[in-house]
């Protein structure tokens, strides 16, 4: 039996949890979804059934703290008799997973991007420059998935939600949350299906209005290159690349970014890549599916107009 951790965010199941359910379902064993957090309407969790869970378990625990969540998840795994635990590799998933692995004495494989073949799990290595096939002989496994690696399909129907609780529900958290500050962007970069990214070619932070407008029209998150983040034109949260965030959206539009190897490492798994650059020799064109050689300040307004027309249609 495979256990899947469902992350609750703003009173809902995070999309990455559905991906994890689909993945776990395809591993072939029964799937039990375990949601930990705070949700006003627990019937919302029944939806997990649609994505592959045969049972859904809810453990109420208001404040996130990785040790508390890891304790609860491992206790649930032991009680339910699960040998495989699947966790989506969001920031909080990544904080819980290694602790769960130690508590369960399980092997841990992180950053998995595909279903296993010949008992080997495919994961990204060298920050997007390559993939590795990882094996383990351990009887228990914790697997973390790179978000946006799988299409989400509905494969079942809603199931009833069971409540579960453990003594350590009330244990004192080791860290204390003081304040949470939302980032400016409306769509979190790691979950975005479309990303509009810009580089030094934009000449200054004051010119980002048109990037944001285009992103809004396309329902996209905004991102940037390393120099842009280093010069503090944009927050480091937007920096994609080898020393920033690795993303794999359906569409990545790179504007005024030349395409240094370190940047490409972070975005090369995107399904469709568009490069817009005034330098026809920019390395980005070698990995792009669509390209425009031209000045960003002339190209973007045309894209904005075309996107407005499309949205009206």
């Amino acid at each position: 039996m495979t256990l899947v951790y469902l992350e609750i965010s703003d009173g809902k199941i995070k999309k990455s949890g559905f991906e994890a359910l689909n993945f776990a379902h395809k591993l072939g064993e029964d799937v039990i979804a375990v949601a930990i957090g705070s949700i006003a309407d627990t019937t919302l969790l029944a939806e997990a059934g649609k994505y592959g869970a045969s049972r859904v378990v809810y453990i109420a625990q208001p404040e996130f703290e990785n040790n508390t969540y890891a304790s609860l998840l491992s206790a649930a795994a032991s009680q339910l008799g699960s040998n495989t635990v699947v966790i989506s590799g969001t920031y909080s998933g990544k904080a819980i997973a290694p602790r769960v692995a130690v508590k369960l004495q399980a092997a841990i494989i992180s950053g998995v991007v595909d279903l296993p073949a010949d008992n080997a799990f495919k994961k990204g290595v060298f920050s997007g420059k390559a993939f590795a096939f990882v094996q383990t002989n351990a009887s228990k496994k914790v697997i973390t998935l790179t978000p946006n690696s799988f299409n989400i399909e509905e494969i079942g129907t809603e199931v009833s939600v069971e409540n579960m609780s453990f003594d350590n529900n009330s244990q004192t958290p080791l860290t204390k949350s003081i304040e949470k500050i939302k980032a400016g962007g409306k769509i979190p970069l790691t979950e975005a299906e479309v990303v509009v990214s810009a580089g030094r070619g934009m000449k200054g932070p004051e010119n980002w209005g048109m990037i944001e407008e285009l992103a809004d029209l396309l329902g996209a998150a905004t991102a940037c290159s390393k120099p842009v983040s280093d010069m503090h034109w944009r927050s480091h949260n937007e920096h994609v690349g080898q020393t920033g965030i690795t993303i794999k959206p359906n569409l990545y539009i790179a504007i005024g970014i030349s395409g240094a190897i370190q940047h490409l490492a972070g975005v090369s798994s995107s399904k469709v890549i568009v490069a817009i650059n005034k330098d026809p020799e920019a390395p980005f064109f070698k990995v792009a599916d669509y390209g425009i050689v031209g000045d960003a300040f002339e190209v973007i307004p045309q894209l904005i107009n075309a996107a407005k027309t499309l949205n009206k249609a």
Partner: protein
Amino acid sequence: MKILVCLSVVPDTTTKITFTDNDTKFNTTGVTWIMNPYDEMALTRALELTEQHTGSVTAITVGLADTEAVIRKALAVGATEAVRVNAAPIDAFQVASEIASYASTANFDLIFTGRESIDYNGGLVAGLLAEMLNLPSVNVVTKIDVNDSVAKLERDIDGGREVLECSLPLVLSAQKEFAEPRIPNMRGIMAARTKPLSIIEPAAANTITFAKFELPKAKQGVKMINADNAGALIELLHNEAKVI
């Protein structure tokens, strides 16, 4: 304040990645090895904290003798002492087990790692260490200040950031913005030669193996759109690529 900083030695970010032995081994020919960038930020902040509060910084790595140039660099920028666990690192579990067994012999107030290594991208060592040592942990930390054995931290969370407090001792993983790395000066490089570097024999085993590698598939070729007709791109993305 006693701080332990865990260092990983990785290929330089500009390295072109290739494999040998029927794609089962990373081709290290011509590779320049560097301190993992996130670990370097962790090391720098550790030095700043001990300069502010007094204390010591111990740098530890799990690696063979060829990692010593990077360890010496850690000493040259200001680490007090260094420890090398004499084993080729294979997986995060093995590395964390080695570091945990060393850390349990000394009372560190803080243990720093980088957010992840830029080669195998596990991002696991901080969490594994914390659990093995039964300590609190905070990952992807962008800021830390310490006052009277309480750390105030900022970390990235999905869709924003969080401010937290935690009593020492604690384990954290450093995210970009944690600190600006330092360049060693001649005095530091000279001093590093006489600073203690202990070598410990390994005891832990790995639990996973990297059986084979693969490079991403090459792209079909780029379709160019004239800049005077840039709007056509949107139509292609909608009708042909079907991504918007």
